[in-house]
Protein backbone atom coordinates (compact mmCIF):
# COMPACT_ATOMS: atom_id res chain seq x y z
CA UNK A 1 0.00 0.00 0.00
CA UNK A 2 2.75 2.37 1.02
CA UNK A 3 4.82 1.53 -2.02
CA UNK A 4 1.85 2.26 -4.27
CA UNK A 5 1.31 5.63 -2.62
CA UNK A 6 5.00 6.50 -2.87
CA UNK A 7 4.90 5.60 -6.56
CA UNK A 8 1.81 7.74 -7.09
CA UNK A 9 3.55 10.70 -5.43
CA UNK A 10 6.54 10.31 -7.70
CA UNK A 11 4.41 9.85 -10.82
CA UNK A 12 4.34 13.49 -12.02
CA UNK A 13 8.13 13.75 -11.70
CA UNK A 14 8.65 10.51 -13.65
CA UNK A 15 6.18 11.54 -16.35
CA UNK A 16 7.84 14.93 -16.81
CA UNK A 17 11.25 13.28 -17.30
CA UNK A 18 9.77 10.87 -19.86
CA UNK A 19 8.20 13.82 -21.67
CA UNK A 20 11.54 15.64 -21.75
CA UNK A 21 13.26 12.57 -23.19
CA UNK A 22 10.48 12.20 -25.79
CA UNK A 23 10.86 15.81 -26.93
CA UNK A 24 14.61 15.36 -27.17
CA UNK A 25 14.26 12.10 -29.12
CA UNK A 26 11.81 13.56 -31.64
CA UNK A 27 13.88 16.74 -32.09
CA UNK A 28 17.03 14.77 -32.80
CA UNK A 29 15.11 12.55 -35.27
CA UNK A 30 13.67 15.59 -37.02
CA UNK A 31 16.99 17.43 -37.23
CA UNK A 32 19.09 14.36 -37.96
CA UNK A 33 22.21 16.41 -37.20
CA UNK A 34 25.39 15.24 -35.39
CA UNK A 35 25.06 18.33 -33.14
CA UNK A 36 21.99 16.88 -31.40
CA UNK A 37 22.50 13.14 -30.78
CA UNK A 38 19.49 11.15 -29.51
CA UNK A 39 19.31 10.14 -25.81
CA UNK A 40 20.35 6.55 -26.54
CA UNK A 41 23.67 7.71 -28.07
CA UNK A 42 24.37 9.94 -25.07
CA UNK A 43 23.63 7.06 -22.71
CA UNK A 44 26.04 4.85 -24.65
CA UNK A 45 28.80 7.48 -24.47
CA UNK A 46 28.11 7.94 -20.75
CA UNK A 47 28.45 4.21 -20.15
CA UNK A 48 31.68 3.93 -22.14
CA UNK A 49 33.24 6.95 -20.40
CA UNK A 50 32.24 5.51 -17.03
CA UNK A 51 33.70 2.04 -17.48
CA UNK A 52 36.87 3.45 -19.03
CA UNK A 53 37.30 5.43 -15.79
CA UNK A 54 37.74 8.70 -17.61
CA UNK A 55 34.50 10.31 -16.49
CA UNK A 56 34.83 9.27 -12.82
CA UNK A 57 38.38 10.64 -12.76
CA UNK A 58 37.54 14.09 -14.10
CA UNK A 59 34.35 14.24 -12.09
CA UNK A 60 36.31 13.34 -8.95
CA UNK A 61 38.94 16.01 -9.59
CA UNK A 62 36.26 18.66 -10.05
CA UNK A 63 34.36 17.52 -6.95
CA UNK A 64 37.52 17.68 -4.88
CA UNK A 65 38.10 21.28 -6.00
CA UNK A 66 34.46 21.99 -5.24
CA UNK A 67 34.69 20.61 -1.71
CA UNK A 68 37.93 22.44 -0.89
CA UNK A 69 36.93 25.83 -2.27
CA UNK A 70 33.40 25.55 -0.91
CA UNK A 71 34.61 24.72 2.61
CA UNK A 72 37.11 27.56 2.57
CA UNK A 73 34.56 30.06 1.32
CA UNK A 74 31.94 28.99 3.88
CA UNK A 75 34.33 28.98 6.85
CA UNK A 76 35.83 32.37 6.03
CA UNK A 77 32.46 33.77 5.00
CA UNK A 78 30.75 32.72 8.24
CA UNK A 79 33.53 34.17 10.40
CA UNK A 80 33.69 37.47 8.52
CA UNK A 81 29.90 37.69 8.10
CA UNK A 82 29.23 37.24 11.82
CA UNK A 83 31.95 39.76 12.69
CA UNK A 84 30.47 42.36 10.32
CA UNK A 85 26.91 41.67 11.42
CA UNK A 86 27.79 42.20 15.06
CA UNK A 87 30.13 45.15 14.74
CA UNK A 88 28.68 48.27 13.13
CA UNK A 89 32.00 50.11 12.80
CA UNK A 90 33.68 47.21 11.09
CA UNK A 91 30.67 46.82 8.83
CA UNK A 92 30.66 50.49 7.80
CA UNK A 93 34.38 50.27 7.06
CA UNK A 94 34.30 47.14 4.92
CA UNK A 95 30.95 47.61 3.23
CA UNK A 96 32.54 49.23 0.17
CA UNK A 97 35.00 46.40 -0.20
CA UNK A 98 32.13 43.96 -0.27
CA UNK A 99 30.28 45.89 -2.96
CA UNK A 100 33.43 46.02 -5.08
CA UNK A 101 34.17 42.32 -4.73
CA UNK A 102 30.52 41.42 -5.35
CA UNK A 103 30.63 43.22 -8.67
CA UNK A 104 33.95 42.02 -10.08
CA UNK A 105 33.07 39.58 -12.89
CA UNK A 106 34.07 36.00 -12.08
CA UNK A 107 36.15 35.83 -15.26
CA UNK A 108 38.28 38.79 -14.18
CA UNK A 109 39.20 37.25 -10.80
CA UNK A 110 40.03 33.96 -12.49
CA UNK A 111 42.30 35.59 -15.07
CA UNK A 112 43.97 37.78 -12.44
CA UNK A 113 44.62 34.80 -10.17
CA UNK A 114 46.23 32.87 -13.01
CA UNK A 115 48.28 35.88 -14.10
CA UNK A 116 49.51 36.67 -10.61
CA UNK A 117 50.01 33.18 -9.22
CA UNK A 118 50.54 31.08 -12.33
CA UNK A 119 48.53 28.17 -13.70
CA UNK A 120 48.60 26.23 -10.43
CA UNK A 121 46.06 24.44 -8.30
CA UNK A 122 46.13 26.99 -5.47
CA UNK A 123 45.44 29.83 -7.91
CA UNK A 124 42.42 27.92 -9.21
CA UNK A 125 41.06 27.34 -5.70
CA UNK A 126 41.75 30.95 -4.71
CA UNK A 127 39.86 32.23 -7.75
CA UNK A 128 36.79 30.21 -6.79
CA UNK A 129 36.95 31.27 -3.14
CA UNK A 130 37.32 34.96 -3.99
CA UNK A 131 34.29 34.70 -6.26
CA UNK A 132 32.13 33.00 -3.70
CA UNK A 133 33.24 34.71 -0.48
CA UNK A 134 31.37 38.04 -0.84
CA UNK A 135 28.04 36.25 -1.35
CA UNK A 136 28.53 34.15 1.78
CA UNK A 137 29.52 37.21 3.80
CA UNK A 138 26.47 39.20 2.70
CA UNK A 139 24.05 36.37 3.53
CA UNK A 140 25.64 35.53 6.89
CA UNK A 141 25.89 39.21 7.82
CA UNK A 142 22.14 39.51 7.32
CA UNK A 143 21.68 36.59 9.71
CA UNK A 144 24.00 38.03 12.33
CA UNK A 145 22.17 41.35 12.18
CA UNK A 146 18.82 39.73 12.83
CA UNK A 147 19.88 37.77 15.92
CA UNK A 148 17.20 37.77 18.61
CA UNK A 149 18.23 40.33 21.26
CA UNK A 150 15.88 38.80 23.85
CA UNK A 151 17.64 35.46 23.70
CA UNK A 152 21.09 37.08 23.79
CA UNK A 153 20.02 38.95 26.94
CA UNK A 154 18.77 35.71 28.43
CA UNK A 155 22.15 34.09 27.74
CA UNK A 156 23.93 37.07 29.26
CA UNK A 157 21.85 37.19 32.43
CA UNK A 158 22.35 33.46 32.99
CA UNK A 159 26.10 33.93 32.39
CA UNK A 160 26.41 31.61 29.43
CA UNK A 161 30.01 31.13 28.37
CA UNK A 162 31.03 32.41 24.91
CA UNK A 163 31.11 28.87 23.63
CA UNK A 164 27.69 27.99 25.01
CA UNK A 165 26.17 31.19 23.64
CA UNK A 166 27.55 30.45 20.21
CA UNK A 167 26.43 26.84 19.95
CA UNK A 168 23.05 27.10 21.66
CA UNK A 169 21.90 30.66 21.02
CA UNK A 170 23.67 32.11 17.97
CA UNK A 171 24.32 29.17 15.67
CA UNK A 172 20.74 27.79 15.58
CA UNK A 173 19.58 31.24 14.51
CA UNK A 174 22.26 31.41 11.84
CA UNK A 175 21.35 28.02 10.44
CA UNK A 176 18.76 29.12 7.83
CA UNK A 177 21.20 31.71 6.54
CA UNK A 178 24.03 29.21 6.37
CA UNK A 179 21.79 26.84 4.44
CA UNK A 180 20.82 29.62 2.02
CA UNK A 181 24.49 30.48 1.53
CA UNK A 182 25.26 26.79 1.00
CA UNK A 183 22.59 26.28 -1.64
CA UNK A 184 23.33 29.41 -3.63
CA UNK A 185 27.03 28.78 -3.09
CA UNK A 186 26.97 25.30 -4.52
CA UNK A 187 25.12 26.47 -7.61
CA UNK A 188 27.54 29.35 -8.12
CA UNK A 189 30.75 27.51 -7.35
CA UNK A 190 30.32 24.61 -9.70
CA UNK A 191 29.68 26.97 -12.57
CA UNK A 192 32.79 28.99 -11.75
CA UNK A 193 34.91 25.89 -11.28
CA UNK A 194 34.21 24.79 -14.84
CA UNK A 195 35.50 28.12 -16.15
CA UNK A 196 38.55 27.94 -13.89
CA UNK A 197 39.34 24.48 -15.22
CA UNK A 198 38.69 25.48 -18.79
CA UNK A 199 41.15 28.38 -18.57
CA UNK A 200 44.02 26.93 -16.65
CA UNK A 201 43.85 23.29 -15.62
CA UNK A 202 44.61 20.09 -17.48
CA UNK A 203 42.00 17.92 -15.81
CA UNK A 204 38.47 18.17 -14.45
CA UNK A 205 35.07 18.64 -16.03
CA UNK A 206 35.82 22.10 -17.40
CA UNK A 207 38.93 20.89 -19.16
CA UNK A 208 37.03 17.93 -20.67
CA UNK A 209 34.14 20.11 -21.83
CA UNK A 210 36.62 22.39 -23.54
CA UNK A 211 38.12 19.39 -25.29
CA UNK A 212 34.70 18.18 -26.49
CA UNK A 213 33.92 21.66 -27.75
CA UNK A 214 37.05 21.61 -29.90
CA UNK A 215 36.13 18.16 -31.21
CA UNK A 216 32.45 19.11 -31.65
CA UNK A 217 31.63 16.00 -29.60
CA UNK A 218 28.14 16.92 -28.39
CA UNK A 219 27.28 13.42 -27.10
CA UNK A 220 30.23 13.44 -24.67
CA UNK A 221 29.47 17.01 -23.71
CA UNK A 222 25.93 16.07 -22.76
CA UNK A 223 26.97 12.86 -21.03
CA UNK A 224 29.47 14.73 -18.83
CA UNK A 225 27.06 17.49 -17.92
CA UNK A 226 24.32 15.04 -16.96
CA UNK A 227 26.73 13.20 -14.72
CA UNK A 228 27.59 16.47 -13.03
CA UNK A 229 23.98 17.57 -12.60
CA UNK A 230 23.17 14.16 -11.12
CA UNK A 231 25.98 14.48 -8.57
CA UNK A 232 24.85 17.94 -7.49
CA UNK A 233 21.29 16.62 -7.16
CA UNK A 234 22.58 13.77 -5.01
CA UNK A 235 24.39 16.20 -2.71
CA UNK A 236 21.14 18.11 -2.31
CA UNK A 237 19.16 14.97 -1.52
CA UNK A 238 21.65 13.12 0.64
CA UNK A 239 23.37 15.97 2.49
CA UNK A 240 21.41 19.22 2.43
CA UNK A 241 17.83 17.95 2.81
CA UNK A 242 18.60 15.74 5.86
CA UNK A 243 20.58 18.60 7.42
CA UNK A 244 17.59 20.87 6.92
CA UNK A 245 15.20 18.38 8.45
CA UNK A 246 17.41 17.69 11.46
CA UNK A 247 17.76 21.34 12.31
CA UNK A 248 14.14 22.29 11.72
CA UNK A 249 12.44 19.62 13.79
CA UNK A 250 11.74 22.07 16.64
CA UNK A 251 9.54 24.20 14.42
CA UNK A 252 5.79 23.89 14.77
Amino acid at each position, binding site marked *: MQAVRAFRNQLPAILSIILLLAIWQSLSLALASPTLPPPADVAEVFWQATISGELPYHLGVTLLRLVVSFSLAMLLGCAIGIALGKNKTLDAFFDNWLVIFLNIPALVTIILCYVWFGLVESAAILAVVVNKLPNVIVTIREGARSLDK*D*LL*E*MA*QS*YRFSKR*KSFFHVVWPQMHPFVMAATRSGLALIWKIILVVELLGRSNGMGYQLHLFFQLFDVASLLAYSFAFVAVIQLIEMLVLKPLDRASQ*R*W*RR
Partner: protein
Amino acid sequence: MSDIRINITNKTYVLAHDTQQIHHAIAGLDITVHPHQFVCLLGPSGCGKTTLLNMIAGLDSHFDGQISMGAIEQTPSIGYVFQNPRLLPWRTVRENIELVFRSTPPASLIDNLLDSMQLRDAQHQYPERLSLGMQRRVAIIRAFAINPNILLMDEPFVSLDAPTARQVRSQLYALWLKRPHTVLFVTHDLREAIALADRLIFLSGSPMRILSDITVPIAREQRQNEANIEAFREQLLQNHPVIRELI
Protein backbone atom coordinates in the same frame (compact mmCIF):
# COMPACT_ATOMS: atom_id res chain seq x y z
CA MET B 1 23.61 35.55 53.01
CA SER B 2 23.60 39.28 53.27
CA ASP B 3 21.32 42.07 52.13
CA ILE B 4 21.01 43.15 48.57
CA ARG B 5 21.36 46.86 48.17
CA ILE B 6 20.20 48.65 45.07
CA ASN B 7 21.28 52.24 45.03
CA ILE B 8 20.81 54.08 41.76
CA THR B 9 21.53 57.78 41.81
CA ASN B 10 20.92 58.47 38.17
CA LYS B 11 19.80 56.63 35.05
CA THR B 12 19.23 58.48 31.84
CA TYR B 13 18.89 57.51 28.24
CA VAL B 14 18.48 59.36 24.99
CA LEU B 15 15.41 58.58 22.93
CA ALA B 16 16.05 56.87 19.63
CA HIS B 17 14.04 59.33 17.55
CA ASP B 18 15.30 62.45 19.28
CA THR B 19 18.92 62.31 20.39
CA GLN B 20 18.74 65.84 21.81
CA GLN B 21 16.26 64.94 24.50
CA ILE B 22 17.57 63.20 27.60
CA HIS B 23 15.07 61.05 29.41
CA HIS B 24 15.47 60.70 33.16
CA ALA B 25 14.41 57.17 33.97
CA ILE B 26 15.57 56.92 37.57
CA ALA B 27 16.81 59.64 39.89
CA GLY B 28 17.67 58.54 43.40
CA LEU B 29 16.40 55.07 44.18
CA ASP B 30 17.61 53.13 47.20
CA ILE B 31 16.20 49.74 48.06
CA THR B 32 17.63 47.23 50.52
CA VAL B 33 16.28 43.71 50.25
CA HIS B 34 16.83 41.21 53.03
CA PRO B 35 17.72 37.61 52.27
CA HIS B 36 14.75 35.38 51.40
CA GLN B 37 12.47 38.38 51.19
CA PHE B 38 9.77 38.39 48.53
CA VAL B 39 9.44 41.97 47.30
CA CYS B 40 6.83 43.14 44.82
CA LEU B 41 7.44 46.25 42.73
CA LEU B 42 4.32 48.05 41.59
CA GLY B 43 4.16 51.10 39.37
CA PRO B 44 2.64 52.59 36.25
CA SER B 45 3.65 50.95 32.97
CA GLY B 46 6.66 52.55 31.35
CA CYS B 47 8.03 53.82 34.66
CA GLY B 48 11.22 51.79 34.21
CA LYS B 49 10.64 48.64 36.22
CA THR B 50 12.02 46.42 33.46
CA THR B 51 14.98 48.79 33.10
CA LEU B 52 15.61 48.41 36.82
CA LEU B 53 15.54 44.61 36.63
CA ASN B 54 17.88 44.68 33.62
CA MET B 55 20.29 46.84 35.58
CA ILE B 56 20.24 44.38 38.48
CA ALA B 57 20.73 41.48 36.07
CA GLY B 58 23.79 43.17 34.60
CA LEU B 59 22.23 43.62 31.16
CA ASP B 60 22.35 47.40 31.43
CA SER B 61 25.40 48.97 33.04
CA HIS B 62 24.93 52.55 31.89
CA PHE B 63 23.88 54.15 35.13
CA ASP B 64 25.29 55.96 38.16
CA GLY B 65 25.11 54.14 41.44
CA GLN B 66 25.75 50.63 42.56
CA ILE B 67 24.08 47.34 43.10
CA SER B 68 25.68 45.06 45.66
CA MET B 69 24.72 41.51 46.43
CA GLY B 70 26.59 41.43 49.71
CA ALA B 71 30.19 40.44 50.14
CA ILE B 72 30.12 37.72 47.54
CA GLU B 73 33.47 37.34 45.83
CA GLN B 74 32.34 35.71 42.62
CA THR B 75 29.75 37.30 40.36
CA PRO B 76 26.29 36.74 41.81
CA SER B 77 24.04 34.25 40.06
CA ILE B 78 20.76 35.64 38.87
CA GLY B 79 17.55 33.89 37.94
CA TYR B 80 15.55 36.04 35.56
CA VAL B 81 11.98 35.34 34.49
CA PHE B 82 11.43 37.74 31.62
CA GLN B 83 8.12 39.18 30.51
CA ASN B 84 8.14 36.78 27.57
CA PRO B 85 9.43 33.29 28.35
CA ARG B 86 12.62 33.57 26.24
CA LEU B 87 13.20 29.86 25.93
CA LEU B 88 15.49 28.59 23.20
CA PRO B 89 13.01 27.25 20.63
CA TRP B 90 15.54 24.75 19.23
CA ARG B 91 16.15 23.08 22.58
CA THR B 92 13.70 20.87 24.46
CA VAL B 93 12.17 21.89 27.78
CA ARG B 94 14.69 19.80 29.67
CA GLU B 95 17.65 21.06 27.64
CA ASN B 96 16.52 24.64 28.23
CA ILE B 97 16.70 24.07 31.97
CA GLU B 98 19.96 22.12 31.87
CA LEU B 99 21.66 24.81 29.81
CA VAL B 100 21.68 27.39 32.60
CA PHE B 101 23.96 25.18 34.69
CA ARG B 102 27.67 25.51 34.35
CA SER B 103 28.21 21.75 34.55
CA THR B 104 25.70 18.98 33.96
CA PRO B 105 23.20 19.03 36.84
CA PRO B 106 22.04 15.84 38.58
CA ALA B 107 19.04 14.37 36.78
CA SER B 108 17.07 14.13 40.02
CA LEU B 109 17.26 17.88 40.54
CA ILE B 110 15.74 18.58 37.13
CA ASP B 111 13.15 15.84 37.66
CA ASN B 112 12.05 17.35 40.96
CA LEU B 113 11.74 20.80 39.47
CA LEU B 114 9.78 19.50 36.48
CA ASP B 115 7.46 17.63 38.83
CA SER B 116 6.87 20.71 40.95
CA MET B 117 5.40 22.46 37.91
CA GLN B 118 3.82 19.31 36.45
CA LEU B 119 6.00 19.45 33.39
CA ARG B 120 7.54 15.98 33.52
CA ASP B 121 5.46 14.78 30.56
CA ALA B 122 6.50 17.75 28.45
CA GLN B 123 10.22 17.57 29.18
CA HIS B 124 11.22 16.41 25.70
CA GLN B 125 8.91 18.79 23.84
CA TYR B 126 10.10 21.87 21.99
CA PRO B 127 8.84 25.14 23.54
CA GLU B 128 6.89 26.30 20.51
CA ARG B 129 4.64 23.27 20.82
CA LEU B 130 3.67 24.22 24.37
CA SER B 131 1.02 26.66 25.54
CA LEU B 132 2.15 30.04 26.84
CA GLY B 133 1.30 28.97 30.38
CA MET B 134 3.57 25.95 30.11
CA GLN B 135 6.37 28.02 28.57
CA ARG B 136 6.15 30.43 31.48
CA ARG B 137 6.36 27.54 33.92
CA VAL B 138 9.52 26.34 32.20
CA ALA B 139 10.97 29.84 32.47
CA ILE B 140 10.19 29.87 36.19
CA ILE B 141 11.84 26.48 36.72
CA ARG B 142 14.88 27.65 34.80
CA ALA B 143 15.23 30.65 37.11
CA PHE B 144 14.86 28.58 40.29
CA ALA B 145 17.10 25.77 39.05
CA ILE B 146 20.43 27.49 39.58
CA ASN B 147 19.71 28.50 43.18
CA PRO B 148 20.28 32.15 42.35
CA ASN B 149 21.35 34.87 44.78
CA ILE B 150 18.39 36.83 43.53
CA LEU B 151 15.33 35.95 41.47
CA LEU B 152 14.02 38.64 39.18
CA MET B 153 10.51 38.24 37.80
CA ASP B 154 9.05 40.67 35.33
CA GLU B 155 5.28 40.17 35.24
CA PRO B 156 5.62 36.44 34.71
CA PHE B 157 1.86 35.89 34.46
CA VAL B 158 1.03 38.66 32.01
CA SER B 159 -1.20 37.65 29.07
CA LEU B 160 -2.25 34.40 30.69
CA ASP B 161 -5.97 33.81 31.17
CA ALA B 162 -7.14 34.18 34.76
CA PRO B 163 -7.44 30.48 35.73
CA THR B 164 -4.04 29.64 34.21
CA ALA B 165 -2.44 32.63 35.88
CA ARG B 166 -3.92 31.53 39.20
CA GLN B 167 -2.62 28.00 38.75
CA VAL B 168 0.90 29.06 37.76
CA ARG B 169 0.94 31.58 40.61
CA SER B 170 0.10 28.97 43.22
CA GLN B 171 2.73 26.63 41.75
CA LEU B 172 5.30 29.40 41.89
CA TYR B 173 4.31 30.13 45.46
CA ALA B 174 4.65 26.50 46.48
CA LEU B 175 8.06 26.33 44.81
CA TRP B 176 9.20 29.48 46.57
CA LEU B 177 8.06 28.16 49.97
CA LYS B 178 10.26 25.12 49.37
CA ARG B 179 13.17 27.19 48.06
CA PRO B 180 12.80 30.64 49.59
CA HIS B 181 15.03 32.79 47.42
CA THR B 182 15.27 36.53 47.51
CA VAL B 183 12.74 37.73 44.95
CA LEU B 184 12.07 40.97 43.14
CA PHE B 185 8.71 40.62 41.45
CA VAL B 186 7.22 43.20 39.10
CA THR B 187 3.45 43.17 38.76
CA HIS B 188 0.44 45.36 38.07
CA ASP B 189 -1.92 43.24 40.07
CA LEU B 190 -2.27 44.42 43.67
CA ARG B 191 -4.14 41.28 44.79
CA GLU B 192 -1.39 39.12 43.33
CA ALA B 193 1.24 41.23 45.05
CA ILE B 194 -0.47 40.96 48.44
CA ALA B 195 -0.90 37.22 48.05
CA LEU B 196 2.79 36.67 47.31
CA ALA B 197 4.92 39.36 48.88
CA ASP B 198 6.50 40.16 52.21
CA ARG B 199 6.84 43.72 51.12
CA LEU B 200 5.27 46.01 48.53
CA ILE B 201 7.20 48.85 46.96
CA PHE B 202 5.13 51.36 45.01
CA LEU B 203 7.04 53.28 42.37
CA SER B 204 6.21 56.53 40.60
CA GLY B 205 6.41 57.34 36.92
CA SER B 206 9.60 58.73 35.44
CA PRO B 207 11.88 59.66 36.94
CA MET B 208 11.20 56.62 39.04
CA ARG B 209 11.25 56.93 42.81
CA ILE B 210 9.70 55.11 45.75
CA LEU B 211 6.24 56.34 46.68
CA SER B 212 5.69 53.97 49.55
CA ASP B 213 7.24 50.86 50.99
CA ILE B 214 4.75 48.69 52.83
CA THR B 215 5.21 45.43 54.70
CA VAL B 216 2.40 42.94 54.21
CA PRO B 217 1.29 41.99 57.73
CA ILE B 218 -0.82 38.96 56.78
CA ALA B 219 0.70 35.69 57.97
CA ARG B 220 1.58 33.29 55.18
CA GLU B 221 -0.88 30.63 56.28
CA GLN B 222 -3.75 33.13 56.25
CA ARG B 223 -3.23 34.16 52.64
CA GLN B 224 -5.18 31.22 51.25
CA ASN B 225 -8.23 33.14 52.37
CA GLU B 226 -9.22 35.63 49.69
CA ALA B 227 -11.10 37.74 52.24
CA ASN B 228 -7.90 38.55 54.14
CA ILE B 229 -6.21 39.75 50.97
CA GLU B 230 -9.25 41.75 49.92
CA ALA B 231 -9.48 43.41 53.34
CA PHE B 232 -5.84 44.44 53.29
CA ARG B 233 -6.20 45.74 49.74
CA GLU B 234 -9.17 47.95 50.77
CA GLN B 235 -7.23 49.22 53.73
CA LEU B 236 -4.20 50.02 51.60
CA LEU B 237 -6.18 51.96 49.05
CA GLN B 238 -7.87 53.92 51.81
CA ASN B 239 -4.71 54.80 53.73
CA HIS B 240 -2.55 55.52 50.68
CA PRO B 241 -4.63 57.44 48.15
CA VAL B 242 -1.50 57.86 46.00
CA ILE B 243 -1.56 54.15 45.23
CA ARG B 244 -4.99 54.32 43.73
CA GLU B 245 -3.75 56.01 40.60
CA LEU B 246 -1.11 53.36 40.05
CA ILE B 247 -3.33 50.31 40.15
